């Protein structure tokens, strides 16, 4: 039997019954087949393992998708102008509209050849974020003047500088509700929480936290990416939740990447100790380790390049990964859409370092210099070609 014929087994219902142990007859039949065909048996067994893993992964992914939909209904996202192409996950109706919209757009690129449409000026990101208070009032942090922004329930919120906001809850008691800081695509912000923990929020990310930490834990919610430096407090563990993952810390420095449109959530520890809980599995990370949680479960990566992980917080990009991952990061910072034309290898690895304040073409040119890809920009769309 050729390699091809082995794959054909996957369309044999009896073989599938054997793989997934659906009935005794087919299991016995194929067990005997394995004994009678010693040369093909290892290939068939390898196929069986592959099918089981595929079934399991698709199951886990479906669960994750459905749970994410539920979460979006429980905690509806804060109102911020989100480009149509990024509105994924939120509700069945929205998904239907998105799919139709995208299809129409790709079929009829009506403005591509219109010379009167000026090429959109693609600026790098900057300090931009919106603060939502517990009473629902929204404050545009970039527009706000330095100084006191709000005093609610005795909690003083101050814009200390461009890109920074700080909480002082020393004069308050009792429950003060939740606040959210959300950075749009092309935005970022640095927040000092009521317990003096610091959070650097990346583009297209949001963090929700109590305006005053009560009780015996400090619980915040994150979508997107943020770097944390948490004040040690043994009495009150600090917990960050993202989708089905919770990261629990006592006091430490770590980075969490949990974007809605990225399948895998990554938590990297720089200093201290954290426990990552995902789907009933928990792992305690050591400095230099990174957990990766996705539909196939959670694994730990050792000896991660920490400079790569927090380069964004220090104002630059440091890439050493596949093209698709790089383009995701650029899309969020420059607020552009990415399209691939032709047979582009999205898995090709590129390495490089470039300041986040440079124009997008600078980053794209670094990759173009390798001769492996070419790009062109149409409006707010970046097109990658061979």
């Amino acid at each position, binding site marked *: 039997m050729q390699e091809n014929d082995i*794959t054909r087994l*996957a*369309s044999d*219902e009896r073989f*599938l019954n054997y793989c*997934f*142990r*659906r009935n*005794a007859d087919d*299991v*016995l039949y194929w*067990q005997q087949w394995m004994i009678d065909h010693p040369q093909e*048996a*290892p*290939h068939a*067994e*390898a*196929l069986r*393992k*592959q*099918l*089981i*893993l*595929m*079934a*399991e*992964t*698709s*199951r886990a*992914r*479906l*669960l994750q*998708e*459905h*749970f994410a*939909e*539920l979460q979006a*209904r*429980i905690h509806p996202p804060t109102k911020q102008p989100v480009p149509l192409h990024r509105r994924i996950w939120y509700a*069945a109706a929205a998904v239907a509209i998105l799919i139709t919209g995208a299809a129409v757009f790709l079929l009829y690129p009506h403005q591509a050849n219109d010379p009167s449409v000026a090429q959109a000026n693609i600026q790098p990101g900057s300090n931009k974020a919106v603060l939502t208070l517990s009473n629902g009032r929204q404050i545009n942090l970039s527009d706000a003047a330095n100084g006191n922004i709000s005093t609610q329930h005795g909690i003083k919120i101050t814009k200390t500088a461009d890109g920074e906001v700080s909480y002082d809850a020393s004069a308050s008691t009792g429950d003060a509700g939740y606040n959210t800081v959300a950075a749009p695509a092309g935005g970022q912000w640095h927040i000092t929480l009521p317990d003096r923990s610091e959070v650097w929020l990346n583009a297209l990310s949001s963090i929700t936290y109590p305006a005053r930490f009560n009780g015996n834990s400090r619980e915040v919610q994150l979508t997107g990416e943020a770097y944390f430096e948490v004040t040690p407090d043994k009495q009150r563990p600090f917990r960050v*939740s993202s989708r*089905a993952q*919770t990261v629990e810390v006592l006091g430490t420095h770590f980075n969490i990447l949990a974007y809605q449109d990225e*399948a*895998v959530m990554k938590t990297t520890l720089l200093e201290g100790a954290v426990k990552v*809980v995902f*789907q*009933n599995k928990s792992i305690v990370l050591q400095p230099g380790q990174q957990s990766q949680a*996705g*539909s*196939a*479960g959670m*694994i730990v990566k050792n000896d991660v390049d920490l400079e790569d992980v927090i380069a964004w917080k220090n104002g630059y990009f440091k890439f050493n990964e596949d093209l698709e991952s790089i383009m995701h990061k650029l899309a969020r910072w420059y607020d552009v859409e990415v399209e691939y034309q032709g047979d582009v290898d999205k898995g090709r690895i590129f390495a490089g370092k470039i300041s986040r304040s440079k124009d997008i073409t600078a980053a794209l040119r670094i990759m173009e210099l390798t001769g492996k890809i070419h790009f062109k920009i149409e409006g707010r769309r970046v097109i990658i070609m061979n």
Partner: protein
Amino acid sequence: MTENDKTLRGAALKSQWNAFIGGEREDAFYAIYTHYHDYFIYLGNLKGFPLEKTKDCINDLFLHVFEHRDQLGHVQHHHNYLVTSFLRRLFRKNNADENIDITSLPDMPAFPSVEAAYIQQATHQEVYKVLQRYMDALPRRQSKIIYQKFYLALSYEEIALANGITVKTAYNTVYNAIGKLKKLISKHHLGLLAAAITLLSLLFLFFSRFL
């Protein structure tokens, strides 16, 4: 396996239920959701409902549970409560007059998810990463079809009907995904094969008692 495995394990989630209702622990909420999600999808499929509708009923139910958790302290048997509420939602939307007898419900078949965990551990890390990357990158629609074919054991005709595609498209989706993944794994010269050979005897031993 003759005992009602799901019921046993469902009852064992009592501490999670209490942790969520009483203590608002969201990871407990997730544990309960995870457990019942698979079973309810299976039930919905068995009763002939499309995947989307079943999902909506599951999420409606759990949204209700989440939003009314302070009023659910009286529930003694969370398993019965959840299953009955789910079925009521499922059939109510259809206006069908179905008799909901919870004791007549089938058990969940023993899908080899335990074995999947074994394979996961034994398989070379690189292989597993390739699989994870590939399966996560698959368009949602294709991943759903693979789930329907392998996990729900639907025929290609049923899948075609459920997804509004032709039987040929359904077949090609599954076949191509398998072939592509196989090529990806062997392209990196990775040894699913090697792992298979060493594990062959172990697996036969493990599963012989399931027959």
